[in-house]
């Protein structure tokens, strides 16, 4: 896979500078929703212009280029350590080229060595499958929006949230109200019902790999997604929390089995600067196709 590293650098560049088309569409839709002459509308116009400028200049959409998550599906027999090595090298090169900000800090010493590579960075999620194809998806997850994520352990008395889907709805909507505009809204929620504290959050982030326009194949979760989206957009929080029609651009909910003792609802918030892309690689590691 000699082409792997340059392909990953290009994947990082494009993810950082170009909004995927499903998100772009949702943002244009949200802009049209806001009445002319409102501060919500001008915020959406600035966001829209920022997206155009970043693409045009091939520069980061936001200066916080976020935490780096690679999701890899590859055939059995793939050289996994080799992939992780290539991912680290690609991150270093993309950082040198300015596609990523020097964004990774040692929590103990406070040092930032400027490479973006260290324990947990980049995070590489590997999955072997029986398909002959290799797919690599990349998520750049901003820090401001990560800070407004929340995990609920049901039941929560104060929210009257019991251990059922109505309880989940109450918990998720509470997260929306707590977040206000602080996660650079309008954002997208990724939610996991069930799992444990670690897998719950992990699975909630994985929801961001879904297209905004898709529908959940599980009817109960589909209903919940539509309900939370509709309700959240009636709360008047709006872009940046300025007040307005669009508080969320989408809601994506997954579920994992839980143990009888626990019932977690894990909510991740993705800001409007929703940076995700993906590629199909050929056996030489070259980009064959873009996924979003």
């Amino acid at each position, binding site marked *: 896979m000699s082409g792997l590293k340059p392909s990953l650098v290009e994947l990082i560049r494009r993810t950082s500078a170009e909004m995927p088309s499903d998100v772009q569409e949702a943002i244009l839709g949200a802009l049209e929703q806001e009445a002319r002459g409102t501060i919500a509308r001008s915020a959406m116009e600035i966001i829209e212009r920022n997206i155009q400028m970043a693409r045009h200049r091939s520069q980061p959409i936001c200066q916080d280029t976020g935490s780096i998550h690679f999701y890899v599906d590859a055939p059995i027999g793939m050289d996994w350590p080799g992939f992780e090595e290539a991912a680290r090298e690609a991150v270093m090169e993309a950082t040198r080229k300015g596609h990523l900000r020097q964004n990774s800090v040692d929590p103990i010493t406070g040092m930032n060595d400027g490479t973006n590579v260290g324990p947990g960075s980049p995070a590489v999620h590997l999955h072997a499958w029986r398909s002959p194809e290799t797919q690599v998806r990349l998520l750049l997850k901003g820090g401001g929006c990560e800070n407004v994520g929340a995990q609920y352990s049901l039941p929560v008395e104060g929210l009257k949230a019991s251990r059922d889907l109505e309880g989940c709805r109450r918990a998720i909507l509470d997260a929306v*109200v707590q977040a206000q505009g602080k996660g650079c809204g309008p954002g997208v929620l990724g939610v996991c019902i069930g799992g444990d504290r670690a897998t719950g959050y992990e699975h909630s982030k994985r929801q961001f790999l879904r297209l905004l326009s898709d529908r959940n194949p599980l009817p109960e979760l589909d209903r919940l997604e539509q309900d939370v989206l509709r309700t959240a957009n009636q709360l008047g929080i709006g872009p940046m929390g*300025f007040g307005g029609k669009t508080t969320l651009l989408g809601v994506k909910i997954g579920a994992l089995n839980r143990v009888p003792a626990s019932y977690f609802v894990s909510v991740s918030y993705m800001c409007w600067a929703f940076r995700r892309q993906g590629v199909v690689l050929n056996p030489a590691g070259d980009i064959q196709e873009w996924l979003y």
Partner: protein
Amino acid sequence: MNPIQLEAPFSEDKIRSLRVGDAVEITGVVYTGRDAVHKHLHEGGDLPPGIRLTEGMIYHCGPVVLTDGPSQWRVVAAGPTTSAREEPYQADIIRRFRLRGVIGKGGMGARTLVACKETGCAYFHAVGGAAQVLAERIRKVRNVYFEREFGSPEAIWEIEIERFPVVVTMDAHGDSLHQRVLDSSKALLAKYL
């Protein structure tokens, strides 16, 4: 909507004439400052000579700046960072320097709001994440202070901004858009539960 033009010098009168919800474009010299600077000033630390923060503005921002040569800089990305982190320090700093404006994102708390009212200062919310659009409104980097001590993103960058687009979300009359939207969204949610 035509934004209100706010130009330096930022007099108390001009600031007191602004109200929550006003769209404003700011033109003049402002100073960036994030966690390290706020902590330093709060602990009584001094400003390096040359900085005229009194009756000025602080921008919560850690810009990405490229150095083109001695005293020649280019701002590549310059969106606001989360202001809430400076809440423990901000009120004191507003009073100490009679600040006229704080630019950031996400809003600030009750103590800052009180200091704004007392002193004649406003909180200006820039669009979070709009690194490219906002960098374009930075016309010039005039100087940098504390770069060696605090590192580039945490340094004080003295910048000239021109028609920098913001919204007043906390005014000098004790009103906060953040509080208003929080209260009304909570009330609405209670209705839909």
